[in-house]
């Protein structure tokens, strides 16, 4: 065995507090080390060439690089040794920068620590085995979860790229939040007018299969070969028959159903089509309000339906789809304003949320675009907007900025003036965050052209006084408290993760942060990938973002999918579990603990039962290896003997 060790100075980053020459000198004394040298930048091209040359010149068969974190450069050097003809797993890194030179002050102790890190890496590399990937076929279909603008964009891009797309939308229509908006900033163009054609494209695309009012139930498999169970929730209307004529909605006697599309601004019918542009434009019964369900008799819609599409007996249906890649665009939720007790949201009808206000502004909304107070249906003259309602407030668990509220508040203030020229809007704000193209100009227009009064300060309390709502807050620029008597108060409540986001993440085996937004693989360099290969992110599921950013991310995720699906075969990571059939006693405890169901029972000739790893499913966590009492299942590259070599190198003296 001939180990070559390359000790990196990393300029002064390592050499500054570690005597690298001494590390090299001591390393040369380790049996099995045939070559050891220190070098200024091992990751540089000449540094890598040095490794390749040394492999040839000294006939080295295993390489250790002592440098930065393997999380940084392991892949770089694996490629280097591979180019020089070695198996890429005959390589180890000793982290003498992040774990050593950067954190210890004493040069002698650091040098000793570096020497030991190298020693452990040498011990490990001597136990390393060559590993080889195997390849497997890729299913070229794509699952997109969420039919908001980000999901639709991803679905359209993938479908235009020639792949079949399965689009799953939780609510009865695609469109998401954007379909509810009146206008969009900073252009003030009609939201549904620009979104509508996209929705139609989704509906009409030959390669897109839309499951509306459906949810992902179970995800099995692995990159390239996922089996997805989708729950089609019962609509009690046979959508193959429903023409969307809307007669049922017209005649339905149950008029007080909660309208989730309109966020409860006004009630709807128990059988309804959520909005005129809905895709699919199909009716759906809400059984919590439908008299047929609550009282056991009614049947008006069934009688009236010209196509006999109503089916009160309908049940949820589970369908299975097979795909190779998944785009998660499951969107966001909004903070429950009752969490902000001082604002009185939920108690006072004239304190509403911005999205509700959006529906009031919208010409196709329940008030046909007339702004009225919910309490008495009178037109408000004074409207107060409260930004950061919950956002940037650690005490209620939303420490982050919700990203786009500043912009839509400016938009809503402008629209308010447009709708009611004699009105006056006030905005309480902490900071105005408007860093997009044309954004700052937009917020200035709201102030300068539309006369919106911006008050820099937080609102401490909103309370009723007669028919008015008193908004009391601080004006930090004037240094006083102010009270404004408003007719209507609009709260820009914080953006939160979508309800059920953690559960979906658990099904997908992706991680989510403390706020339940999904975590990207790298915050800068891999913004739409997740740590689970084959699963990509788009839109607000990953964090609050506005429409252009969501659309951009939808396309980005689609690009990632398309590049992945451009290959017919994928290679697996060979650092996965492997069973030694001779040693395996068939107790199958590994089957019980495998988080990926990657281990199955196998009967050998002669009847002996052993565990078997499904290579493509195994993710390489090693839970099985530490479960197995007899060491018969070993996670390659992290075998017991490999880790014991490190333990022994560090402990036995």
């Amino acid at each position, binding site marked *: 065995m001939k180990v070559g060790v390359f000790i990196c100075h990393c300029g002064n980053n390592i050499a500054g507090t570690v005597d690298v020459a001494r590390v090299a*000198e001591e390393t*040369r004394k*380790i*049996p*099995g080390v*045939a*070559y050891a040298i220190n070098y200024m930048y091992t990751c540089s091209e000449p540094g890598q060439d040095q490794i390749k040359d040394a492999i040839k010149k000294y006939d080295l068969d295993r390489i250790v690089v002592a440098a930065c974190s393997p999380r940084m450069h392991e892949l770089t050097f694996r490629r280097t040794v591979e180019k020089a003809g070695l198996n890429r797993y005959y390589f180890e890194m000793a982290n003498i920068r992040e774990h050593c030179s950067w954190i210890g002050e004493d040069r002698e102790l650091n040098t000793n620590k570096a020497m030991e890190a190298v020693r452990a890496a*040498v011990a490990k590399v001597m136990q390393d085995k060559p590993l080889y990937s195997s390849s497997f076929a890729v299913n070229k279909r794509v699952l997109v979860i969420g039919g908001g603008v980000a999901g639709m964009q991803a679905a359209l891009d993938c479908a235009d790229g020639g792949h079949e797309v399965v689009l799953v939308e939780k609510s009865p229509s695609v469109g998401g939040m954007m379909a509810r908006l009146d206008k969009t900033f900073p252009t003030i163009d009609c939201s549904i007018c620009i979104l509508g054609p996209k929705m139609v494209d989704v509906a009409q695309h030959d390669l897109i299969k839309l499951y509306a009012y459906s949810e992902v139930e179970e995800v099995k498999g692995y990159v390239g070969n996922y089996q997805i169970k989708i729950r089609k929730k019962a609509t009690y209307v046979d959508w193959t028959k429903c023409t969307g004529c809307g007669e049922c909605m017209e005649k339905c006697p149950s008029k007080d159903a909660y309208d989730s599309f309109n966020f409860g601004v006004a009630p709807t019918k128990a059988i309804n089509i959520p909005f005129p542009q809905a895709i699919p434009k199909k009716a759906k019964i809400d059984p919590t309000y439908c008299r047929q369900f609550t009282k056991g008799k009614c049947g008006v819609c069934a009688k009236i339906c010209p196509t006999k599409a109503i089916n009160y007996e309908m049940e949820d249906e589970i369908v299975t789809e097979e795909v190779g890649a998944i785009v998660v665009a499951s969107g966001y939720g909004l903070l429950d304003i009752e969490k902000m007790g001082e604002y009185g949201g939920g108690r006072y009808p004239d304190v509403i949320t911005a999205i509700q206000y959006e529906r009031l502004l919208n010409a196709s909304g329940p008030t046909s675009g007339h702004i009225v107070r919910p309490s008495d249906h009178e037109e408000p003259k004074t409207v107060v907007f409260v930004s950061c309602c919950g956002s940037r407030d650690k005490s209620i668990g939303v420490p982050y900025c919700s990203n786009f509220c500043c912009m839509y508040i400016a938009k809503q203030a402008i629209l308010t003036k447009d709708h009611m020229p004699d009105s006056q809007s006030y905005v309480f704000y902490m900071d105005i965050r408007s860093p997009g193209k044309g954004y700052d100009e937009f917020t200035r227009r709201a102030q300068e052209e539309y006369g919106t009064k911006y008050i820099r300060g937080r609102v401490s309390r909103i309370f009723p006084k007669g028919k008015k709502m008193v908004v009391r807050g601080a004006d930090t620029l004037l240094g006083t408290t102010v009270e404004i008597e408003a007719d209507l108060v609009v709260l820009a409540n914080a953006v939160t993760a979508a309800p059920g986001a953690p559960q979906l993440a658990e099904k997908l085996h992706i991680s989510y942060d403390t706020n339940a937004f999904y975590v990207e693989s790298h915050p800068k360099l891999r913004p739409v990938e997740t740590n689970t290969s084959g699963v990509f992110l788009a839109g607000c599921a990953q964090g609050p973002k506005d429409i252009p950013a969501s659309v951009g991310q939808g396309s980005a995720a689609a690009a990632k999918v398309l590049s992945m699906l451009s290959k017919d075969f994928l290679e697996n990571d060979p650092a996965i579990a492997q069973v030694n059939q001779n040693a395996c006693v068939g107790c199958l405890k590994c089957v019980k603990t495998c988080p990926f169901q990657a281990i199955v029972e196998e009967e050998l000739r002669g009847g002996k039962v052993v565990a078997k790893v499904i290579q493509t499913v195994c993710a390489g966590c090693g839970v099985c290896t530490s479960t197995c009492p007899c060491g018969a299942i070993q996670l390659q590259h992290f075998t017991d003997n490999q880790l014991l070599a490190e333990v022994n*190198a560090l402990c*036995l003296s």
Partner: protein
Amino acid sequence: MTDKGYLPQDKWEPFIESLSNDFRVYAPCEEDGVITFQVLEKGKKVDLSRPSTSAPKGVMFPQSERLFSFDFKKAPESPDKMAVELDASTNMPETVIIGARPCDAKGFLTYDRVYLEVDPYYRERREKTTVVGFCCNGPFAGCFCTSAGGGLAEKEGSDLFVTEVDNGYFLEAITEKGKKLLGRPMVEDGASHADAASKKQEQASKALQKVIPGDPEPRISREAFESDAFWDEVSAKCLSCGVCTYLCPTCYCFNITDEARLEGGERVRSWDACMFHHFTLEASGHNPRGRKAMRLKQRVGHKFLYYVDKYGTIACSGCGRCIRHCPVSVEISGIVARLTEGAQEDQKAAEARS
């Protein structure tokens, strides 16, 4: 120098203690109800009231021993060249085993035939060790020395033989090594106790009836021995553990492993047991003695057939430990007795023919 000595009761302990000054002395000592041969140190009490749990074989054939150590050496100027330094030095002290039972002492003879010629480690220990045998007063559960060519007063294998008589201990030199001990202080002339001792020995010899036929040793029938059904039956309860072999005064199988670190290591010889699955496990995963029936058969066969073929005598001294301490009471004497029945008949048939 005489070949008979005597130690009065009150000199017994001081005598053993004085031995400790010049020898490493092993003696049966009790700890938590278990008697094992231990190096005598202050505070340890010799207990001869019953047979020890384990035989004193570890003294001569340690549970594990370093055969040699190896160190990898490198010259700094040429790190790609490596030399191996070996160190096979031994440092074995002069040793006395006190209180070996006749069966224990006789056990060493089984080793001698195998190791004395060929194994320098064993030879050095053997040469430096004096075995002081101890006459048994009576048999314990499982004992069958009389069926294995031995007896409660068997002196073969001892260098010095001790018999409890007349409020003291009669010491009988069997070899030159034993004789040397008689010259040590406190040892009185023993001639006057010789009669009492031989009477005692005779009495002891009769205290245990033979349980296996055969004189002086049992001979087992090859035909019966080759019956798979027989071994399946007698091994059904066997746990395949190492109690029988590791407590046995005649089992001598070993394993050799290199226990290495980065810079070097040791080659270690350690006890191994034919009852273990691993004993014959091949690298391919195949195991020629994969079932416990085969392993039990090997154990009995080795002691009563193969060893006999090679050395002309059985490799068992009838100490009974394997029976006494077997977790499931596998009774080798019973197994051998059943196998000899056929042998008797064979013999009778042969006689009849001739």
